[in-house]
Structures are given as structure tokens and as C-alpha cells.
């Protein structure tokens, strides 16, 4: 019997010969991984939702009434070329009046002589720049330009979104860390239980001169097996379930396949660490 094939058969035997313990270990890990996956999915989905909310944010820059149209055009061009601007639209007095009319449904200014509405520039931004910090800075830069009377943008809303994003990020980091720790500890306990039931064997085999590495390989395999199966089954279940679940107003964002593959690889590593930690003290 070649040593490698023995090690593989031994690892399989360790799992199969105690099916109830194996299933308990797997189920526990599966639950933990499912939680981790859900946290990940939630984080992606919340992020996507907040991105969508923020992408509608724009800035309204009002131009002083005293400024000549040519000067206003210069201001517009300057603004349009500023760093971070995606689109800039010039809203003339007539445009503004039309907008108000379509908003109100009737020409409220019909009785008035002249047009009291100001000219303005409507700016949208590239998504990386849609932060309250950048827009603050941008506003201050604009204020240095001449001929600008007022600047409006939904600063409060933006900050609220940023706060939520921050809170979500902290929660995800905390939960991810806690769950990962739980996974390692749990693997450690499963493997320790597995090793404990084979104490006699470990002792006799070490008396026969089996090295620590040779003795621990089956347990490390066992750890990897549990972690990998739990991780893969977890994602399979979620992807399967997502076909049946649809939510109004909420889009569920999954990690990409590559990310899931990386996740499974990392699970293997965690399985290895847990397996090694579990067997170590029994040697």
C-alpha cells in the first residue's frame, strides 16, 4: 500500500466511519458559511443600492443675473472642463421657465413681465467623485469663480448614504471576522474530536515511528474536506435559492464566479489551519 493512497483512504475513512459526527461538523460549518455568504451578498446588494441612489445626485450652479450671456458661457465652459464632471448642462432663463411650467402644469409666470428665473448650470459627476468630500471641495473651487450666485446639491442625502455605507462596511468587517474565527474554532473542535476518538492509534503509530507530519495529514485533509464541501454547498444552495426568490425594489447581487472560486480556495486554507490546530495537541 503506497503511503499517499493510504493517507487518502485514511482521510476518507475518518469521515465515513463516524458519519453522524461528520454530518454535524459539516452542518455547523455550512451554517456558518451561509451566514458569511449572506453577509457578503447583503454588502454587495446594499452597496449597489446606495450606488444607484447616489448616481442621481447632481449639482445646480446658479449664475448671477448681472453677468452677460457671453461671460456666462465662459463660466459654463470652465465648469464643464473641471475635474470629475461627467456632464454639464446650461439652463437658460427660457429653459428654467419651461421647467417650472412643466413642473406646475400651468404658466405661473404668465402675468409677469420679464423672466425672474436665473440661469444655471446642471452638473452630474463621474461616480468615483460622488462623495460629500469631493463635492464640498468642488463647491469651494466654484465659489472662487466670478459670476456664480448660488450652488445647490443634496449634501445631507449624500452624507446619509455615506454614513450608511460606513456602518455597513464596519458591520461586514466585524461579521466577516467573527464568522471566520468561528469557522476556524469550529474546525479545530471537529478535528480534535476526530483525533480524540483515535488517540490509541496516534499513540501506537507514533511508537512505530510515524512522524508528526504523516500522522497529521489525514486530519488536515479532513479539515480541508469539511471546509471545502461546506463552502461549495453553501454557494450552491444560495445560487439555487436565488432562482426562486425575487424581491420588489431590491436587487440581489452575488459575488462573481471568480470571487466564489477564490472564496473556496481560502476555505481550503482555513480548513488546513483548523485541521492542523485540531490535531496538533493530540500528537
Amino acid at each position, binding site marked *: *500500500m503506497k503511503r499517499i493512497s493510504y493517507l487518502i483512504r485514511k482521510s476518507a475513512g475518518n469521515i465515513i466511519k463516524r458519519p453522524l459526527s461528520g454530518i454535524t461538523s459539516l452542518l455547523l460549518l455550512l451554517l456558518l458559511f451561509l451566514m458569511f455568504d449572506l453577509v457578503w451578498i447583503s454588502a454587495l446588494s446594499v452597496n449597489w443600492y446606495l450606488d444607484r441612489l447616489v448616481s442621481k445626485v447632481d449639482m445646480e450652479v446658479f449664475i448671477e443675473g448681472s453677468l452677460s450671456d457671453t461671460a456666462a458661457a465662459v463660466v459654463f465652459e470652465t465648469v464643464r472642463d473641471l475635474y470629475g464632471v461627467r456632464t454639464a448642462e446650461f439652463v437658460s432663463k427660457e429653459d428654467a421657465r419651461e421647467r417650472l411650467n412643466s413642473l406646475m402644469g400651468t404658466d405661473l409666470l404668465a402675468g409677469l413681465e420679464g423672466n425672474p428665473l436665473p440661469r444655471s448650470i446642471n452638473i452630474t459627476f463621474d461616480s468615483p467623485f460622488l462623495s460629500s468630500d469631493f463635492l464640498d471641495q468642488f463647491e469651494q473651487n466654484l465659489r472662487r469663480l466670478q459670476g456664480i450666485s448660488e450652488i445647490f446639491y443634496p449634501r445631507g442625502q449624500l452624507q446619509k448614504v455615506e454614513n450608511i455605507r460606513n456602518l455597513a462596511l464596519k458591520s461586514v468587517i466585524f461579521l466577516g471576522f467573527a464568522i471566520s474565527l468561528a469557522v476556524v474554532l469550529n474546525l479545530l473542535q471537529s478535528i480534535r474530536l476526530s483525533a480524540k476518538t483515535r488517540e490509541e492509534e496516534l499513540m501506537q503509530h507514533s*511508537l512505530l*515511528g510515524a512522524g508528526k507530519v504523516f500522522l497529521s495529514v489525514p486530519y488536515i485533509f479532513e479539515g480541508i474536506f469539511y471546509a471545502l464541501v461546506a463552502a461549495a454547498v453553501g454557494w450552491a444552495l444560495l445560487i439555487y435559492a436565488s432562482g426562486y426568490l425575487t424581491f420588489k425594489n431590491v436587487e440581489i447581487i452575488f459575488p462573481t464566479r471568480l470571487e466564489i472560486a477564490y472564496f473556496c480556495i481560502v476555505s481550503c486554507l482555513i480548513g488546513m489551519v483548523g485541521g492542523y490546530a485540531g490535531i496538533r495537541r493530540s500528537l
Partner: protein
Amino acid sequence: MNSGNSIVELVDITHTHSDGARLFDGLNFHLKSGEMAVIYGSTGIGKTTLVELIIGKRAPQSGTVVVFGEKIDPGSERLVAKTRQKIGGVGGLFRPISYQTVYENLVYPLILRGDRTSSCRSRVTRVLSQLNLIGKKGETAGNLSRGERILLMLGRAIIADQPLLLIDEPLAGLDTQMSSEVLKLLHRLSVAGHSMMIMTTGQTDLQVPNATVHEIRDGRLG
């Protein structure tokens, strides 16, 4: 002192247990290659402790233990593991794995050596028939009778083919027929070139030809 053919060298071993019992007090012992030494002494005199010193399960308080020319120090895992591969045993620490079958108990040394499955099978089967245990091949070791268990451990020593065998009370609880069978096996192993240390409380029933006999008394080996 490191004569070329010394397998075990115990030099000036002093050992006191945690409860204050002084077991060894300047004990010296040499086992030559191929020698069969019977070591006797009353119960609690320290025979099993001696075995534990030699396989590096315990360190003496003072003195040196040299096995196969290597100084044994329970601290250095690698060396101890390497030396242990050359040391087999029966009784004491060397017990069958109770939840494994007789076959599984016997095949492990061959696996460790990296033998192929088919050669493992035939080797184990051959040894089992030598021992008259072939009917118990698939039996769980925990179900064996005391005598069968001792045979099993002798079988493991034969298969592992270790040059040094430490045998702790091989005849304890055996009937006369089984005793003589075990003695025959031990003799055959000795003839095959294995060096042996046999620990026993009553020297009388261990009549082995060619054996050197030593008594543990007053913390020394005479």
C-alpha cells in the same frame, strides 16, 4: 564506552519519580547487538519505566540513554521518531489498537515503509498463519483474549522487523501451552538477529536459551 555493537547503552541513570520514589540510582546497562537480555525485578521496581526511558517517553533526571548510537532526548521529536522506527515491543506501552482489526493492527508498519498493497496482504497473512491467528484476521483487537493480544503484538514486532524489541511481561496471564508458543517465537526472533530486552517479575517461568539474565535491585541492574 560506545562500543561498535552496543544497541542500548544506559549510563549512570538516576531517576526519581514525582512522588519521591527513587527508582534508579546510578544504573548502568549495555545491550549488545543480537543479545537477549531478561531483566527481572519485583513489581514496581521500574521495569516499565526503563522501557519508557529507552523509547524516549521519559527523560532520566541524570545519566544518558543511547540507542543505536543516538543520544535519546525526549525534547528532539525528529530524532526520537527516527529511533523509534527501529524499536518494537510487546506489552506495557505497546498495545494493540483496540478498535482496529487484527489486520489493520499488523499492516501499519508496512504502510509506513511504503510497501505495495499486494505485498502487504501476503506478508500479514503469512505472519498470521505463523501465529495461528489467521481466523481472527478481521476481528476487532479489543475482542481478542489476553493471549491472542500478546500474539498480535509479537506479530507486529515480526512485521515491523525492528532490530530492537522491548518486551514487557510477555507471559502474564498465559496458559502453559501459549507460554511455550510465545517463548518459541521469542527465541526465533532472537535467532533472526533481533536484540531483545525482556522484562518480567518472575524469572522462573522464562526459560530461554542463550539469554543473559539481569536483576534490578537497589536502583541498579546486576
